[in-house]
């Protein structure tokens, strides 16, 4: 007999409802969709449906491991936890921690509590640094909240959707389905902005293909066209915003034509995009009393640049200029990558604020210190990318990494590997012995999503339950329980009451989290059980949750225009030696670096080598044909892959997903240069060259 357990998909930020059908041997036999889930409305993609077999993969770490004389030895929990607690006590003061956007809110909350309270530092961060930190920075500055303003239902009620630097067909498939539903059945307009032709372009009314790194020029150009053609929402600007004049003078520095020249998009198309976005024609069924709305949706094509924060500002400026915020069917959405990247930030796993994005001022910190019974650090911590770079200076000498594999996700992997190796002490807590775990001193086996209770918060701010469906694999334990055990061992030495880490259940952890984060104060497990997922803000128990933000006001009062100007397109641009631009991204059949999806046979069957997309003209120059094995080089490294010759990329450009397959990964090539404000690396642009791989014939050839 199988039993069915409702839970939430562990892959992407869409957060689809899944129903795990588990047999008597604790194997997941089938994953069903969940028609009552309001985020996924009965849909799933291939990863959610067929991609959860990694849970039972034989590679799962079964016991704690301690490295002795360069080799891992199996250990008991007590041995391993003692080593971790003792070594970390020595390292207070030069310690940093990565939390996991794949783990639950409860895991994240306990981890930041441990880091702040026991380790006495704000050096905690997670992968948001590598994906949407520029969006969050820009939104906090301009609007006062770093979250997606709307809900997926708004894509279905929009009259126009603008997709910028994202590929929802591959990375957020169920959002893509919901958008296709609107486009196919309601005549919703679609504008795609991407240097690469993505699948959604098939349905696009307008496809803009700017040159890499020229987004500010493009969006300032669109803003200029909105101004020139009288499409601005004057009453919204007057009543709800500030800083308009400075913004207008910056935008007026260049004409639409001048912007067009810079970004390589025709002036006419810039004007058309301005019209679609600012004044879209009403979709079928648009309520006549509501102005037709436009949703602005973006991904890493905007953020992973040295001017990532500027790019995000230019988008938000446009949304303010056209007044496309605070009504049904409009809004701004940075598409979040990981299943719980929203929640991990909400729970405070970021260096510059406490849970709920509360700054380190006395007023905000007081309730924490009171509840936790000890003083907390008040200076902002190091951001993830800086933590790794600061290993070189000795500022960071020990790290505790939960559910992340920086040695696949950081840029310039050779350099990052050297740094991580230089740590005095490294703890990794995860499911698999991945590249980073191999370098650890202690490895602690963590439960997968299927083995524990908790909550994830998806891209539309919906907090949803994760439920234990199978028994833990081997000796694995939930992340928050492990962290509590470490914290209790260290508490006396750190002057903290061990009772601070004595939770009886995930639900108790959530209650403390909700008590300290005003935006979710009205939510508890009982409500989630009865009502399904709830969207924050939900400040009180009788509050139904919030579909879209900013209906009447912004958290900072008035929204603010931030003028931005196009700077150098990228830190490293093509030259004679490396004549091509390398752009990175993802494919449908793999998850990020691939640590998980490489362990799902069917997904590997679909894609087993890294596809390298190259334009036919560049392929011809290099003598490359479809399917040829190729090598790609940058100043920092090389990788192998299989050529996909396609005009979906522009001449002079290569596109490589950053999944690691056959020991090859794009991040050996990417550039470790950063956006000043958010410290995101420039994954999207570096100079590269491509060659056909020479056949090697000989005794060892396979």
């Amino acid at each position, binding site marked *: 007999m199988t039993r069915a357990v409702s839970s939430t998909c562990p892959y992407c930020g869409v957060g689809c409802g899944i129903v795990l059908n588990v047999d008597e041997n604790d194997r997941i036999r*089938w994953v*069903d*969709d969940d028609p009552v889930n309001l985020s996924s409305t*009965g849909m799933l993609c*291939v990863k959610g449906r*067929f991609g959860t077999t990694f849970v039972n993969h034989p590679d799962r770490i079964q016991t704690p491991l301690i490295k002795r004389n360069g080799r891992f030895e199996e250990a008991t929990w007590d041995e391993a936890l003692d080593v971790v607690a003792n070594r970390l006590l020595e390292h207070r003061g030069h310690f940093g921690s990565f939390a996991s956007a794949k783990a639950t809110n409860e895991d994240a909350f306990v981890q930041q509590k441990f880091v702040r309270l026991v380790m006495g530092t704000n050096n905690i961060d997670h992968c948001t640094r590598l994906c949407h930190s520029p969006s969050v920075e820009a939104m906090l500055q301009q609007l006062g909240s770093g979250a997606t303003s709307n809900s997926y239902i708004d894509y279905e009620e929009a009259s126009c959707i603008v997709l910028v630097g994202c590929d929802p067909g591959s990375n957020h*498939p169920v959002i893509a*389905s919901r958008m*296709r539903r609107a486009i196919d059945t309601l005549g919703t307009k679609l504008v795609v902005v991407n240097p690469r032709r993505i699948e959604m372009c098939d349905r696009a009314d307008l496809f803009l293909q700017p040159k890499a790194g020229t987004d500010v020029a493009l969006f300032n150009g669109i803003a200029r066209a909105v101004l020139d053609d009288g499409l601005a929402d004057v009453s919204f600007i007057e009543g709800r915003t500030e800083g308009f004049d400075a913004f207008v003078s910056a935008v007026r520095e260049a004409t639409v034509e001048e912007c067009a020249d810079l970004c390589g998009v025709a002036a006419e198309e810039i004007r058309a995009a301005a019209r679609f976005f600012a004044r879209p024609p009403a979709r079928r069924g648009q309520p006549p009393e509501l102005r037709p709305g436009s949703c602005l949706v973006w991904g890493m094509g905007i953020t992973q640049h040295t001017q990532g924060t500027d790019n995000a500002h230019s988008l938000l400026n446009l949304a303010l200029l056209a007044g496309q915020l605070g009504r049904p069917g409009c809004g701004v959405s940075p598409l979040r990558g990981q299943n719980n990247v929203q929640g991990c930030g909400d729970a405070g796993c970021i260096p510059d604020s406490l849970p709920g994005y509360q700054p380190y001022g006395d007023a905000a910190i007081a309730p924490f210190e009171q509840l936790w019974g000890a003083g907390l650090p008040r200076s902002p911590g190091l951001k993830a990318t800086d933590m790794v770079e600061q290993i070189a200076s000795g500022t960071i000498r020990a790290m505790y990494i939960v559910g992340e594999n920086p040695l696949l996700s950081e840029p310039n992997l050779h350099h990052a590997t050297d740094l991580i190796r230089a740590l005095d002490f490294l703890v990794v807590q995860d499911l698999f012995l991945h590249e980073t775990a191999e370098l650890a001193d202690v490895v602690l086996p963590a439960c997968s999503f299927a083995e524990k209770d908790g909550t994830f918060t998806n891209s539309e701010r919906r907090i949803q339950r994760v439920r234990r469906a199978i028994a833990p694999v081997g000796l694995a334990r939930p992340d928050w329980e492990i962290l509590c055990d470490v914290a209790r061992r260290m508490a006396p030495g750190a002057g903290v009451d061990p009772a601070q880490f004595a939770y009886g259940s995930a639900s108790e952890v959530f209650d403390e989290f909700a008590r300290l984060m005003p935006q979710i104060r009205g939510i508890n497990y009982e409500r989630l059980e009865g009502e399904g997922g709830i969207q924050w803000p939900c400040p009180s128990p009788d509050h139904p949750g919030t579909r879209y933000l900013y209906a009447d006001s912004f958290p900072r009062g008035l929204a603010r225009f931030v003028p931005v100007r196009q700077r150098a397109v990228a830190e490293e641009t093509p030259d004679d030696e490396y004549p091509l631009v390398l752009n990175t991204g993802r494919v449908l*059949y793999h998850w990020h670096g691939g640590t998980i999806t490489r362990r799902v046979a069917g997904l590997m069957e679909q894609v087993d080598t890294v596809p390298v997309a190259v334009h036919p003209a560049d392929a011809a120059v290099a003598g490359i044909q479809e399917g040829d094995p190729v090598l790609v080089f940058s100043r920092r490294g090389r990788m192998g892959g299989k050529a996909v010759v396609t005009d979906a990329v522009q001449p002079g450009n290569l596109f490589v997903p950053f999944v690691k397959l056959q020991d090859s990964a794009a991040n050996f090539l990417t550039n470790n240069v950063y956006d000043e404000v958010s410290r995101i690396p420039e994954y999207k642009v570096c100079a590269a060259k491509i060659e056909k791989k020479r056949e090697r014939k000989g005794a060892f050839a396979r």
Partner: protein
Amino acid sequence: MKLNGVSVEATGSLLDTVLAAGIALPHLCKDDNLPVIGACRTCLVEADGRIVAACSTPAAGVQECATDSERAVRIRRGVLELTAAMQSGPAGAAGGPRSAESLEAYASHAPRPGQYGLRSGTHADLSNPFFSFHEDACILCARCVTACQELQHIGAIGIAGRGHTARVTPGAGVSFRESICTSCGSCVAACPTSALRPKG
């Protein structure tokens, strides 16, 4: 409204009303998750003297509905016999989560075997890593096609050909693997037989 002689409240379609009243009625092409298809005719009932498909008939306006009239049961049995004959492949092949629906429907109507010739199509498509398609178990209810088109808005599969040659296909001469199918599995989840079955 009167349902099998008992007063009930009409909600949605006749099928909704019947199921809400706790009365079993086959409905092989109607999935909770999908819009009405109305292709399988296994949900026929007698409404105010006419035989209608319960799934596509609004309950409002119907005075008397019978699922158990001799005529309705006889016609449904005929439809189910024909449907069962389309499932000519080996019995008991493991299917997806809804695959038992067809078997339960047949069992509930005591079909007489051998009334109709078995379906002849035996095409199988094993190309997708996650699921396979077996024509010899397909009853052409169109749930998979509807899931792909109207739930996921992908449109990777359709029903090509008519009558005896009709077949669910991702395109002439194209396998699932070669098609625009994204392997989302919504078709497998919808299939009421073992025609679309998960692998492993």
